[in-house]
């Protein structure tokens, strides 16, 4: 594990240049995202927080190439994103596990789809990831035998098994109860401190956004614009849940909340 940790970053930078998105709806065009320019550093954990419907999901969907931008350009590394970008891990709000596959088979799905070899190496990687996620002993179980939190852990392992330079997480813990969510935050920090890939993490939970990230991007109501970008380097790593009790942590949470209050999003 020491070897992995010493390699500080295995991520790719992400760049958005004046990205906008307009959806054509039956009520005419709907502006979802307004001129977003952003530079995500390699190996950076960026949280994106904003009110419901502010286009944060649209933003990651466009970075993944699953959704085309109406205008503007997106780059991952040096590559311009124009079609589904497959060198990334994607974690959705729903775990989207395949019911008919065991936990281990689910984690190995990307390896199978992409015909990666040697399989034995990835198998070991998958087992290590599952162990790190506290899922040892569940490798041969089927998804229905797992709790919601465990299922989402499996889907995170699946996203990480190919060691992607970029990880997109779209409200991954939104469907979990508060206590499980807290635990998942803690576990995700532990795992990421070892993988160090670039992460775009969407949430509407301020606490979660601040706890996880190197920087927090605060977005406005629809159409989504960047309200502020907070640098959290004052909150030291490695982090544990205890960090939430520190004045620095609370200062940043208050800062984000104030931004929302000033915008009339919170009152």
């Amino acid at each position, binding site marked *: 594990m020491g070897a992995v940790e010493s390699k500080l970053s295995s991520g790719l930078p992400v760049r958005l240049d004046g990205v906008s998105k307009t959806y054509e709806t039956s009520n005419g065009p709907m502006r979802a995202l307004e001129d977003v320019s952003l530079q995500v550093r390699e190996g950076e954990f960026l949280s994106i927080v904003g009110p419901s419907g502010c286009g944060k999901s649209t933003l990651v969907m466009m970075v993944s190439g699953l959704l085309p931008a109406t205008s503007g350009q997106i780059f991952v590394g040096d590559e311009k994103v124009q079609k589904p970008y*497959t060198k990334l891990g994607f974690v959705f709000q729903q775990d989207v596990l*395949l019911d*008919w596959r065991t936990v281990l088979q689910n984690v190995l799905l990307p390896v*199978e*789809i992409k015909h990666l070899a040697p399989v034995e190496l990835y198998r070991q990687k998958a087992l290590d990831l599952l162990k790190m996620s506290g899922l040892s002993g569940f490798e041969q179980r089927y998804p*229905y035998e797992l709790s919601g939190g465990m299922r989402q852990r499996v889907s995170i392992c699946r996203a990480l098994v190919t060691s992607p330079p970029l990880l997109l997480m779209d409200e991954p813990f939104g469907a979990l109860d508060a206590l499980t969510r807290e635990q998942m935050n803690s576990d995700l920090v532990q795992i990421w401190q070892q993988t160090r890939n670039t992460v775009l993490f969407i949430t509407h939970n301020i606490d979660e956004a601040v706890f996880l990230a190197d920087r927090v991007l605060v977005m406005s109501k629809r159409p989504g614009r960047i309200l502020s970008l907070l640098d959290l380097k004052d909150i030291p790593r490695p982090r544990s849940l205890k960090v939430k009790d520190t004045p620095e942590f609370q200062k940043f949470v208050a800062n984000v909340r104030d931004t929302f209050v000033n915008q009339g999003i919170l009152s």
Partner: protein
Amino acid sequence: MSQRQENGAGRLWKWLKSNYITVLLPVIGILLWEILVRVFRTPTYLLPAPSVIIGTTLEKIHLLLFQSWVTLYEVLIGFLLGVVVAVPLAVVVVYIPPLEKAFYAFLVSAQAVPKVALAPILVAWFGYGLLPKLVVAFLVCFFPIVINTVIGLQAVSVEMLYLARSLGATGSQQFWRFRLPKALPAIFGGFKVGITLAVVGAVVGEYVAAGQGLGYWQVVAASNLDTPMVFSILVLLSVMGIILFYLIDGLEGLVIKGDPNRAQRRQAAAR
């Protein structure tokens, strides 16, 4: 663990203990039937006693088994034809959206046609041989299989397709690794409805025009007022339907992994 080590007799005993009502009710029903028929001296041509039906069945077992085979053959071929045509058709319909609309319009009108009422026409077209029975069996089992397969193939969620695409899955990978496995429970649901309907279809085909098969012999027996034989055939047809249903159910268990509903049923049965 201890359950696995138990022998067959032990398991059977355990099953009987927890399911005695399931076993007892039909036994009581049959006994009651036997007693009432004897007490009221019901004429055999109206309602034969269970003992008489069993006696007739044993007496004519060779004929009945051979005729069962004839009917079973029609059922199986009709059903397999249904599967072979219905499943690929459903795939085409799902993948070509304009076809889907046209297909549903056709389907609604086709559903309204009582397929068994086509039997006389089919006889006129295909004669008295095997073919008209196959076609009726095929027609009645075809529709539930198509409909269930279409519904199953459409059951895959948007997020799952996003996942597939972000993994770079090709079209055929999306079908074989995501859509089809997701659809299997619904498809097997269609098979189960289809196989029991195929029995109905084959028998109706035999009613209309045949020289053999259980349906034909039932018509013959009925016209001779041989009611025990009519009942005996009814029982055989039911048994055939039940066995075919559970064969498909068993096959489903082998093919589909990780189905929570199935696992719950298994646990409930073991309890």
